[in-house]
């Protein structure tokens, strides 16, 4: 069973994303509402794919991403950044830090599905 973690502070957005990717066969979706909770849960719930918002209070997406990338334990974890059209610069930085893919809001559910499926098939499991 593959595990997806959705890290997003907007509850409506989070449950929307979770309900879209929850349709993929054989995945379990973990939802977290901020970077702090993600940090707490990551060591326990080893996620195969993290779907990560950039703008969050507390610990933002880039900080979380750098944590994941610096930690060899998460070498096989794929990170999908969810950004907006305006944040081109931060998106560029995320890719430089080692994000695997990004989506720009608003996206079609289909885009999200195919991207996540692709990342899952690349996963080193």
């Amino acid at each position, binding site marked *: 069973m593959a595990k997806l973690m959705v890290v997003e*502070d*907007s*509850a*409506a*957005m989070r*449950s*929307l994303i979770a*309900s*879209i990717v929850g*349709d993929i066969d054989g995945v379990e979706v973990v939802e977290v509402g901020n970077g*702090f909770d993600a*940090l*707490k849960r990551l*060591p326990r719930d080893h996620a195969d794919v993290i779907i990560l918002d*950039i*703008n969050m*209070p*507390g*610990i*933002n997406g*880039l*900080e*979380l*991403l*750098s*944590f994941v990338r*610096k*930690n060899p334990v998460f070498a096989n974890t794929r990170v999908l950044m969810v950004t*907006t*059209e*305006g*944040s081109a*610069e*931060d998106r560029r*930085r995320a890719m*430089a*830090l080692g994000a695997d893919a990004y989506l720009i*809001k*608003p*996206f*079609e*559910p289909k885009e999200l599905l195919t991207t996540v499926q692709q990342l899952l098939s690349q996963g080193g499991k």
Partner: protein
Amino acid sequence: MGKPTGATPEFVAEAQEIVDGLNRDLIAAETESRAGEVPPQRINSLFRNAHSLKGISGMFGLDAVSHLAHEMESVLDGMRLGKVLTDPTALDVLFSCVERFGVLIAAAEAGEGGQEADEAVEQVVDRLKQVAGRGSAQRPMGLRDMVELADDVLSVLTEYEEHRLRDNLTRGRNLYVLRTAFELSNFDVGLAEIDGAIQKIGEVITKLPSSKPGEPGTLAFDIIIGTDRSEAEVNAAIGDERVKVAAVARRNAPKTAVASASPAPATPSSSAHEEPLADDGVVHDVTKDAADEVAALKSVSRTVRVDIRRLDRLMNLVGELGLTKMAFERLSSDIRRQQGFTELAAELHKENRNFERRLAELQAGIMEVRMVPLTNLFERMVRIGRKMSRELGREVRIETTGENTELDKLIVEDLADPLMHLIRNSIDHGIEDPDVRSKAGKDREGVVRLSAAARGNHVVVEVSDDGRGVDIDKTLKVAVERGLVTQERAQELTRREIFNLLFLPGFSTRVEVSEYSGRGVGLDVVKTKISQLSGAIEVDSAEGRGTRVGVTLPITLAIIPALIVMVARRTYAIPLNNVQETLALEKGAVKTIERREVISVRGTTVPLTDLRNVFALGQLERPPVCYAVIAGVGQSRVALVVDELVGQQDIVIKALGRRLRGVPGIAGAAELGNQQTILVIDVVQIFNELSQNQGRTEEVV
């Protein structure tokens, strides 16, 4: 799964929350901008909210909201990156955005469009674009040339954090890295403490988590902060030697010494803030431009927005003036007693009366400003009610009366959730299916009525329906099943007592869960909320005919008339709106029925509660002559036994200090004229305690 369209309740709830947040921040920003400068955290918080709103509205297909939020976001992004001026003109446009959002979200919620951007939206968008166009262009200097920070730190900064770092540098502030480690389980608590300490002396720029190899279960952080304090001062502010503070060195910083003990001397400038150090001439003097802009702009608006907390402060001042007035009164009557009615005494008396009248006017004036009609709230409730009935397949007409009734704005804001819950209950539990209704000889269409009326110092808001009424048998059955009353006791309950069972925590007669009901946050939560507003709530219902829930609220929370009493040599205040009458308590008047003390007040039996027991002041005996204060909340009454009645007085309730917060039966503190602080009794809470204790003893029996 297709793309969701339109405003789901979840979307609406979150969007509304975001818009409220924007509004709060804008109000604060307005004050801050008048006082000098809007702090970066404020602008960032505004940005984040606009950003979230854009994100969700785009996903949920509300193009108009998303379009406007997008433009707003880019203006705010410019502001937080120092590219766009944050001045009154800009704040004004941002306020217009918030207003538009309110309209659009309401329309979407009611299913009345709001999808397409209309003219009004485009107008605001045009103004946003103008604001964005007035930005001051800055050529940012590469951070790597300015400061000694490792590349793997710099590369993690968002564009905004990078700007904050640069801004702190140009303002001549010192940068430090705080290094610390926490247990994985509670690092957020530790971080929040550091955040709190730093906020007082500067700003947290970024927090980088890293896990120390070999130490699973712990999480290390590098926190970069900017401040004008010295290293020693930062250490002192944090007060935790496990946090290692290290200064970040600057590169070729000409004037400021590396992590110097004092901030770089600032050139005096017209604004309250230091002029940015123009290291190499790249920094544009934004504050001066802003001042010119403001001077050229004369306000045309005739209304002002005021943070309600400012009114609270004024109101408190008025309360304190009231105390001063009483001190004068005392002095004046002392003089009269000592010197008789001299001319001076008469004069003093007259001026005092004048003062009193003006003060009353002032108080009424401030009160008036705080008051808002219930119109908006009612409109919102009607919209929500319509939507619920559509979704639950009921035919319901929602009627309102008395929406012009006014209440303190703070109370109105807190009323939305409870009212929504009551309307939801009426539609969900009360109104029957159309077919059932016509069989029962009722109109197919059910009626839910929302009404408000002023009653002296109170406002009564009612939600009633012409539905099936509360099912008494079912209610009793559930209460017994859940152990809320015993089988025997259940037989004896009056109708009113039965309805009161509905307010007990966890009570819900619904078995299956519908979207709107059965989620376990029931009437008990509604009751708690209303009690917090010093209000009372009551249910009345007739089987087959309908249900009425009445909420009685004080019109304002700030100043209240109170009865001052003594119990065991201590002084307390009892809010007068809870007091029905007072009487001397003769020994023979007290009877004991079922091991409870009661007295008879004009034919009805009222239970007695000695405040001495409530507040555990048992050391001193009840004096031979004492008094009963008959307190009422809704229909329930209790006689509070006190030793002495001191008199009546307006008091300003203040929040309690940490030590007393949470003491049951105490609503707050108030100051009497002679510098004496007294406790204000929370009658509603005493009632709650009483009925709970009653429940408990009955369970034991």
